């Protein structure tokens, strides 16, 4: 049957069986290549048609297309930005404000989620009954409530509970918490002192790392090497620091650093929710380490903290890292729920506000998707590299 069709096909495209191309069909390698090329061609054709069709339909409907709009002034304000932005800035700048805000919450969220996840995951395996149950309760509750609801909880419920600015909660030291966010003092550097400090800090961090790697320095010694030189430099420079305190003036706090409640709510919700998942990953990783390892370590008389850090975790990481990568990717993508609570992330600023001002859905959504894809691929790449580094190095294989 197969050969019948094959010979019919060869006939249909004008080739006889002893033809070179027909002989190529018999060779699985060549056939593979031709097949790959054909599929690629089909895919390219499909994409081309999709694009062409879209452009054609947009033209028919008199809807503008292209990326010219990026240079037009955006016209809207954004209340949280890492770079200079005003309503007169162009859409491209608004786009970058959104990208940076997304990155900020994703990076901080990943760090916090990792911290929470490892603490809770290890706590769940604690021999202490209460600690283990509390950790289990934390995980089971937070994993099983939809993230959007948690987000609304952290935003609307907590916002309602927080006092007004005049009655801010404050532990002193220029830190204020109220329904407008968290206000902390900003460190001001005397002109020309910030850069040398950064260089010193970087240099001593490298030194500390080197000391740890090469001379197996540990704990306080490493910290000392990393922290003392920059501190010394500051003393030499005559302590060129001052604090810019937030002060309540008129309708709001002026000065200092202000973290808007939307940011805090999003960060908390994302890191706690993802942290609960990470905790389970950590638990599975730790439990995957053979019991004999722990028993051997105990037999050597190692303290339990050291067993965890030096024996269990390094081996558990091989199991933890791959699912951890998925959680990091989830966190990044879930950060787009920011739109529900007005945190100006990429989706709110660009795919929402800019889209409705410009109306070019195809371009704007494509750009937004590309950013998430890039962030996710970047995270993936890094985690794969890290995973490869952790993998068991097999020696002696040819």
């Amino acid at each position, binding site marked *: 049957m197969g050969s019948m069709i094959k010979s019919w096909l060869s006939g249909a495209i004008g080739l006889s069986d002893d033809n070179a191309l027909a002989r190529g069909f018999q060779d699985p390698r060549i056939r593979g290549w031709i097949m790959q090329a054909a599929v690629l061609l089909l895919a390219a054709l499909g994409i081309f048609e999709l694009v062409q069709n879209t452009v054609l339909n947009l033209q028919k*409907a008199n809807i503008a297309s292209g990326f010219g709009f990026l240079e037009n002034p955006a016209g809207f304000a954004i209340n949280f930005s890492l770079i200079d932005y005003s309503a007169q800035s162009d859409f491209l700048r608004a786009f970058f404000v959104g990208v940076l805000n997304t990155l900020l919450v994703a990076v901080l969220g990943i760090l916090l989620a990792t911290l929470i996840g490892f603490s809770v995951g290890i706590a769940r395996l604690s021999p202490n009954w209460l600690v283990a149950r509390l950790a289990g309760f934390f995980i089971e509750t937070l994993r099983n409530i939809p993230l959007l609801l948690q987000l609304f909880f952290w935003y609307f419920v907590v916002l309602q509970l927080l006092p007004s600015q005049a009655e801010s909660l404050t532990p002193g030291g220029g830190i204020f918490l109220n329904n407008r966010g968290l206000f902390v003092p900003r460190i001001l550097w005397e002109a020309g002192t910030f850069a040398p400090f950064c260089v010193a800090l970087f240099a001593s961090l490298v030194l500390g790392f080197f000391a740890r790697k090469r001379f197996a320095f540990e704990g306080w010694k490493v910290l000392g090497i990393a922290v003392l030189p920059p501190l010394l430099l500051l003393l030499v420079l005559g302590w060129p620091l001052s604090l810019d305190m937030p002060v309540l003036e008129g309708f709001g706090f002026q000065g200092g650093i202000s973290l808007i409640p939307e940011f805090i709510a999003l960060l908390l919700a994302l890191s706690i929710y993802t942290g609960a998942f990470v905790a389970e990953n950590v638990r599975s990783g730790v439990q995957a380490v053979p019991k004999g390892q722990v028993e051997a370590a105990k037999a050597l008389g190692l303290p339990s903290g050291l067993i965890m850090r030096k024996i269990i975790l390094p081996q558990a990481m091989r199991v933890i890292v791959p699912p951890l990568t998925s959680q990091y990717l989830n966190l990044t993508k879930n950060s787009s729920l920011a739109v529900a609570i*007005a945190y100006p992330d990429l989706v709110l600023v660009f795919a929402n506000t800019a889209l409705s001002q410009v109306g070019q859905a195809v371009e704007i959504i494509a750009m937004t998707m590309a950013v998430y894809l890039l962030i996710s691929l970047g995270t993936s790449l890094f985690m794969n590299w890290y995973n490869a580094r952790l993998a068991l190095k097999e020696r002696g294989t040819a």
Partner: protein
Amino acid sequence: MRNQAPALIFGIVFGALLVYLFLPGAPSGPARDAQELSKAEQENLAPEAARGGTLRVVRERGELLCGVSQGLPGFSNPDDEGDWRGIDVDVCRAMAAAIFGDASKVRYRALSAKERFTALQAGEIDVLSRNTTWTLTRDTVLGLDFAGVTYYDGQSFMVRRDLKVSSVLELDQATICANTGTTTELNAADYFRTHGLEFEMVVFEKTDEVIAAYDAGRCEAYTTDASGLYAERLKLKNPDEHIILPEVISKEPLGPAVRQGDDRWADIVRWTLYAMIEAEELGVNSANAEQMKKSDNPSIRRLLGVENSYGQNLGLRGDWAFQIITQVGNYGEIFERNVGKNTPLGIPRGLNALWTNGGLMYAMPVR
């Protein structure tokens, strides 16, 4: 037989590709893609005029797809029984009355500010009647066509009474809540910049979330169109604790929009609106329309289709305006019923009075 299966698969894929590429009369890209769309979508994506237009599609479907808000009292809001009510809703009902002779043949689609234009562009709705401001950008590059103004609005600010603020100019350094994807955001930025004031903007996608944040004290002021402020104030815990500041910082002419490129359909929306305004000017309302048919006034007789049949020029039935007026009412009735003095909103006619009463409502002559 070992190598037969891959060869078979390859043969089918490659053969299909060849047939696709070289068979004479193989459908070209756009046409082929269009076939995959449903019939209604196809009608809408293609230039309507060439295919008999939106009107034909609507007639065949038997109902009008009307894009409204997700709930704005007085403009488009479901009532206790789940029926949509409001000025914007009445525009759609009037169109259904003109097209089908039955104002109830409307299906409503609740749209957020962000979704509304895409929904219209993509042909999910026939007309967008959702407190939408008529601007140049929207009328041109968004592929929309505004058919008229149903309500002349302007942007204002609402603040707490205990803030002791009596003017927008006192809101320097204030935090302001608003809806994303609106002209509101742009107007506020412009206004504060021209007056040298600093402000912080918090924008939400849904109005209910804006209101919740404002109620929770996240911001000093809430800004949107004045009509919207009156409507949303009703949703607050204690409406009396909030005042609407006197400044109107922008022109917000709200009106129905259709897709560009189907002029006949745009005409139907436009003249539905004019018929309602003209009826108020001529003193014809839902109660007296039947008697008015006997009127000696030629303008009334023309409007009601007693003399000449202007409805047919629009592609509608002869008594189109009569149906609009008896089933939905004239503009004055619609205004008073939805947002007027005797409603919870209690908005005065102001700019929305007839031109003969010092307002801006002016219908082109029906003749």
